[in-house]
């Protein structure tokens, strides 16, 4: 009897937990601005999300709702639509936080439920999980699978709308079916607790889906609610996998982080760190970076340091052991602010310090041309996607605002503007003619 009884109680618990969870899952429709092709255009997308607090905070993916969203509409489990606002955004973990329009909820006497988090560190491979979301717009779809791997490294330098992602955390891998539109929806255990936020799947593969672990999502969402964004420290060390190279570097077992690259001009480069070095300790902590899944936690341990903090590295170079000291700087994405100058038919993105380093530019002066509209002055002048505009008239484009000022003056009084742009370090001159 007891044997028969227990599963029955379990099922009851599952259904109660699940009911609550299903009440908390929402569909998210986003209308947003896109700055491609020399214009400001509106596009739309559908994703999923989960309500995580009684004051209407919704967790979703950064690639579902971004700062370029102009209208976010949330469909509650009760099939009521409510507006929402973006509260915070973090492409590195592919997480975004929205808040329901609580006044509207109150006025229309709507109700919703908040889901509960589970402990993603306690997941084991083989554990049953469910994904809930809106694949291909099919609202409230439930799929089932298992945790295929709970420590999957997944770095993508252009993964979230061209922004970097995945450097600082490992991911959950599941075979629960995850399709476009599942993004931002929860991955839950049998008792309905959120253990992950579904984020991506291999297209063309079968049942290889990935989710952000809930323990990461909890920490990030708390900070996003508080500050709107996450500040991370950066030193410019690009790690490689040490796997099998311990003998070559004459290292003690299970020790060391291989320096695969050092970003030019970065704190690590200025401190004299070189590719091929092996970092033994970071602020006294021993490092072990033999396998890919060991790298994100090490990266995270650097990222959480306060900006400007001092980092002490003990580094092995050949037979020498060196002590290096450096100051962290703020982590900046390669993707800068975007804008469209519509009368020129020109859309641009600010060159950032990271972009400049990656492309070996002298500094972060300039804006990258994202696109031009045929028949408009920028296209007529001969500007093309990929050109970097460094100067307009006598104004050096150090900030996007400088270009906005020039454009403002042009709008008031259209006169030909001399533009200096470079491509692959070759400088060309163009004229934007009214």
């Amino acid at each position, binding site marked *: 009897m007891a044997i028969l009884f227990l599963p029955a109680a379990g099922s009851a618990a599952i259904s109660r937990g699940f009911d609550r969870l299903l009440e908390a899952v929402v569909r998210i429709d986003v209308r947003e601005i896109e700055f491609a092709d020399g214009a400001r255009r509106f596009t739309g997308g559908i994703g999923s999300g989960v309500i995580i607090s009684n004051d209407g905070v919704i967790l979703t993916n950064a690639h579902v709702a971004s700062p370029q969203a102009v209208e976010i509409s949330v469909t509650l489990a009760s099939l009521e639509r409510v507006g929402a606002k973006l509260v915070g955004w973090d492409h590195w973990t592919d997480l975004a936080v929205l808040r329901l329009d609580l006044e509207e909820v109150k006025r229309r006497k709507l109700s919703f439920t908040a889901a509960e988090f589970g402990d993603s560190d306690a997941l084991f491979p083989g554990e049953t999980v469910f994904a809930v979301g809106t694949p291909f717009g099919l609202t409230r779809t439930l799929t089932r699978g298992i945790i295929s791997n709970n420590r999957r490294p997944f770095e993508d330098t252009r993964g979230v709308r061209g922004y970097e992602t995945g450097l600082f955390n490992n991911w959950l891998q599941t075979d629960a079916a995850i399709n476009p539109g599942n993004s931002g929806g929860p991955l839950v255990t049998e008792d309905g607790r959120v253990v992950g936020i579904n984020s991506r799947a291999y297209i063309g593969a079968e049942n290889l889906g990935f989710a952000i672990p809930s323990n990461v999502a909890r920490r990030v969402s708390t900070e996003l609610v508080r500050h709107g964004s996450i500040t991370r420290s950066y030193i410019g060390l*690009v790690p*490689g996998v040490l796997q*099998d*190279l311990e003998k*070559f570097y004459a290292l003690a077992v299970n020790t060391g982080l*291989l320096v*695969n*690259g*050092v*970003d*030019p001009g970065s704190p690590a480069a200025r401190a004299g760190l070189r*590719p*091929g070095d092996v970092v033994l300790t970071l602020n006294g902590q021993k490092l072990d970076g033999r396998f890919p899944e060991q790298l994100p936690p090490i990266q995270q341990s650097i990222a959480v340091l306060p900006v400007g903090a001092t980092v002490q590295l003990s580094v092995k170079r*050949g037979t020498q052991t060196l002590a290096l000291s450096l100051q962290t700087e703020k982590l900046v994405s390669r993707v800068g602010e975007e804008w469209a100058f519509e009368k020129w038919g020109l859309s641009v993105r600010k060159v950032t310090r990271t972009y400049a*380093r*990656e*492309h*070996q530019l002298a500094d972060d002066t300039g804006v990258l041309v994202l696109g031009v509209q045929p028949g408009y002055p920028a296209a007529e*002048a*001969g500007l093309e996607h990929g050109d970097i505009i460094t100067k307009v008239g006598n104004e050096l484009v150090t900030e996007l605002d400088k270009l906005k000022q020039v454009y403002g003056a042009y709008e008031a009084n259209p006169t*030909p503007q*001399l533009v*200096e742009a*470079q491509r692959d*370090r*070759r*400088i*060309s*001159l*163009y*004229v934007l*003619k009214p």
Partner: protein
Amino acid sequence: MRLLRPLFVVLLLAAGASRAATLPELFQERLKSVVEVEFFIQSEIDRQPVMVLGTVVDDQGTIVLPGPAIQPTVAPGQLKEFKVYRAGNTEATRAEYLGQDAYTGWHFIRVEPKLRGELVPITHWPAMKSAPALSEELWGIGLRGKDEDFLPYFLSSRVATVMKLPQETAICGSDVAGPGLPVFNTTGEFAGLALPSFGQNYLVFSRNQHGSPIMLVNIEESSAVQLAREVLPYLHRIPETVSGRPLPWFGAYGLQPMDPDVAKLLKLENQSGVVLSDIASGTPAEQAGLRDRDIVLAIDGSPLPRLKPDRIVAGYFSQQILLHRPGDTLNLTILRGSERKEVTVTLGSEPKLVREAERHYFDRLGVTVREFLNADAISMRVAPTEHRGVVAHFIKPGGPAATAGLRPEDWIREIDGTEITSYQQALDLLHAVEVDKERSEVVFLVGRGAETAVIRVKLI
């Protein structure tokens, strides 16, 4: 000649031939100026056969081949077994590679003496004094391949336009000759050499594609003809050395045309110019005091011509430099900001080119390394004085280096943790690796753009 000519006419009349009937005769005669050339490009692991058309330019058996016949990275030592075939004749005669002329881009070869008597240089025929008129009929020769016994065939078309690219070039309505072969007018005067064919734009329609643009390039025939007066004065430019040296060096790598709107805004109406940039340190351009953004308006007092499309002027400027020798001086009139200046540049000697670079293939690793060149420093964006390391020139597909992820053009900066400061040092280290049968791996530190990577090559 006076005596002969009437006789010739009489004979023609006797044969009852009209004027058009002379074309087959002209065709047969002019065939002696064209050849097909076969050679091999020897790479580390295979040899690639090449067939190309050539024109005979003197009594010494000198033949010019179009520039694109050989990739610029191929070393002259890799070019093997040049064989020359006459039209419709499968007998092969050996020839020697003489090098490439930088100005025209032509490759020169010289055939063995025994065939020279059978060939007639293009200079033997009268040449057109002026550009052909629009609609004038031109004709030329095409040659089929080896399996068709190099069968010659006749092509003709009319001149559609004449353009400066920057050389004067007649564009015909359809193909007039095989690329690299001569073109004539109806009286048999030499009109020019057919260039490698220009691409033609088409749209592809299919069940899935509704008018997708593609470009088609005819590799067997061409409708573009570089005019005789752009060809004949340069036929004597037979390279002094197989490397093509002496080669002048200016040293500004960004040469962008000044577009007419920019000229107007800078109050330079009706002037042409080239915007200089990417001037590396230590180059003649830098030593002459030229700077990024200087606009060259004239060379030795002659204003740069206005050419269409605008970008042609950059090619014109480069070619004017290539007409000089190292040590020559050029007086450039430039615009810097709003100020006009005269700058004298003393041309240097072009630093070693990829085709001249020392290189060595390591079979066990499956990689050819070559010395680090000035051109590498420029593309890697390091100071040319920081010449260090070697460059992976060739990676054997499926070989150990390829499997480890080494790629062509990777900059090898360290081998087994030792910083590479010279080509010889890299060779010594890699030789030691190759002969050491106990060795199971070698570790490279490579640079690739702004990135670096530690690459471990497992040896078999």
